[in-house]
């Protein structure tokens, strides 16, 4: 098993947001986490990546059998965890491809592999950039600075394509995307599906799942997974909305 979340409880600013989440993810699987606003979807994604704003108050997360929550964010990344941010951060003054090369080489160094020089790196990203239909200028501009919403999300998936994670967490990657950008991003993600890579796709809307078809769908409500099923569950949610689920959860 790649990832095992057991009874995870998480607090932010004195409010309990995740109240006991269980999830098991095997390599090759794509899991969608759906749920209404405030259900804790993004909190789950951020806690897995090591965001400092959250406090774990119960449960555990095992990644490749190791305690993920004890690892620094950079160590998680080096071990193959990748999060595509809902709001990618603009970092003026740091060149996008320069940064990505440093990140890739940090990963390679961690794995005891040879680091790439500038020429090898440029050759690598040329291919990956095609996948995301990235404009050359997006490589040389500062990280995310002045990027449109769609460009930022494309850049996230581009980073993912270069860093080749074992576990990719996509946090509302569809938010703010028009249909064309959504198609580009989704086909990029689909190209990265592989038997040894798992993905957790966090989304509010079923729309994204028309393009990135999940193996499993989980519905998060008020900090708990209230239903799990196959891809058809997403369609059910699309038809009925989240209201009936919340009522169902309250009734339990």
């Amino acid at each position, binding site marked *: 098993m790649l990832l095992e979340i057991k009874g995870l409880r998480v607090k932010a600013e004195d409010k309990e947001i995740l109240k006991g989440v269980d999830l098991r993810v095997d390599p090759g699987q794509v899991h969608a986490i759906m749920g209404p606003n405030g259900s804790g979807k993004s909190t789950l994604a951020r806690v897995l*990546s090591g965001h400092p704003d959250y406090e774990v108050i119960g449960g555990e997360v095992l990644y490749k059998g190791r305690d993920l929550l004890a690892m620094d964010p*950079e160590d998680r990344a080096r071990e193959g965890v990748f999060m595509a*941010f809902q709001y990618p951060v603009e970092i003026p003054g*740091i060149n996008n491809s320069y940064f990505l090369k440093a990140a890739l080489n940090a990963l390679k160094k961690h794995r005891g592999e040879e680091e790439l020089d500038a020429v090898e790196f440029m050759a690598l990203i040329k291919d990956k950039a095609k996948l995301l239909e990235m404009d050359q200028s997006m490589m040389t501009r500062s990280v995310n600075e002045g990027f449109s919403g769609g460009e930022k999300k494309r850049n996230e998936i581009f980073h993912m394509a270069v860093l080749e994670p074992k576990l990719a967490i996509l946090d509302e990657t569809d938010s703010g995307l028009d249909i064309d950008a959504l198609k580009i991003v989704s086909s990029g993600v689909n190209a990265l599906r592989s038997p040894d890579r798992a993905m957790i796709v966090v989304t509010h809307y079923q729309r994204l799942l028309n393009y990135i078809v999940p193996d499993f769908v989980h519905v998060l409500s008020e900090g708990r997974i209230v239903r799990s099923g196959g891809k058809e569950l997403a369609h059910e949610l699309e038809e009925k909305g989240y209201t009936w689920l919340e009522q169902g959860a309250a009734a339990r």
Partner: protein
Amino acid sequence: MTVAERHELFVAAYDRLKTSHSAAPAWLREARAVAMREFAEHGFPTTRHEDWRFTNISPIVETPFASSGPAPTAAQMASHLFPEANAHLAVIAAGRFSHELSSLQDLPGMVFVGSLAQALVTHADDLQPALTQIAAGDHPFVRLNTGLFEDGVLIRVPANTMLDRPIHVHVASDAGTDPTVSHPRVLISAGANSQFTVIESYGGPEGQCYFTNAVTEALVGPGSVVHHVKVQRESRKAFHVAGTFARLGRGSVFTSLNISLGGGIVRNDISALLDGEGGEATLNGLYLADGDRLVDNHTVIDHAKAHCPSHEVYKGVLGGKARAVFNGKIFVRQDAQKTNAKQTNKALLLSDDAQINTKPQLEIFADDVKCTHGAAIGQLDEDALFYLRARGISRIDAQHFLIRAFAGEVLQQVQPSSIRDRLEQLMLDALPRG
């Protein structure tokens, strides 16, 4: 010994030197006498003095200094050189120009770079319009330097001369064990339509306490272009008080990049007088401090004539209990119509105990001008740090990325560009840790 008696010691040192000044030209003897008379009258500044409000210099005043010690060796100053710049090298060692350590044999004819003391013997009258004429006469440490400087470097580039290679003046403090003081003086004279770059660096043995009281004057002739880069990497126990004063002629360009990485107590006065129409001045700075170090930058851009743009960006990175002072004065005189002055100063505080006092000071007497200023003090962006770390970059590397990006605005512009990478590395090496 009281502070008042300390300044008597410097006056006594002047009285001893006076005999050796007897060969000097009358105008210089007079300038020295006036400077020391005023120094004797006013003494060292205290924090009651507006320009020294946040900078307590009593550790300087309370240290007994010997006047000079053994000169440093070539090996000791090697790490302060910029081989990538392929510069003509002039070295001031323990307060005196050193023929031995300098390397000036490839200078083009008519260009003079060498001992100021020697030039005062051979070309005294040529120096009169500039030496002691440009530096602020009312600055207590300038007075002290004017009274006590024994030697230094003269750079004289004749009209219509363009130098491909920069001139590097390195001021090496001596290698003795007792605290010493030196008063190096540099005079830069740029003839009309000349163009060249001066790198001025300061350093001494790490851990050593000494006091460098330096003054640089630059006469920037009409139509000339002078780039001045100052790299201060004194010992972290040293005191560094220095002034760079430029007077710009019509249509000339002067850029100053003031990089302050070392020193225990550091005070820089950088000043540009726009004395001819159409001159353009840039005063940029980058400073780092940690521990209980203090770095104080006072700048003045004086728009005396019309149609002059000026640009100023100062950036600081502070850690530990370090303190910094930034004071940026911009004067726009009544005749200086169509002035366009822009000033920015920003500081990054890496710890809760670091602090900065910052004060832009604009005094505008003309009515058709454009002046802007802005100040920002903040911490490293936590969201950006997390973003970088979530991609696998270590915390310390992520901090370095962000600090390098912060400093980039200043370092990107450095002339000569050949020293940019090394300056960036020197900055990273000097960064406050933790």
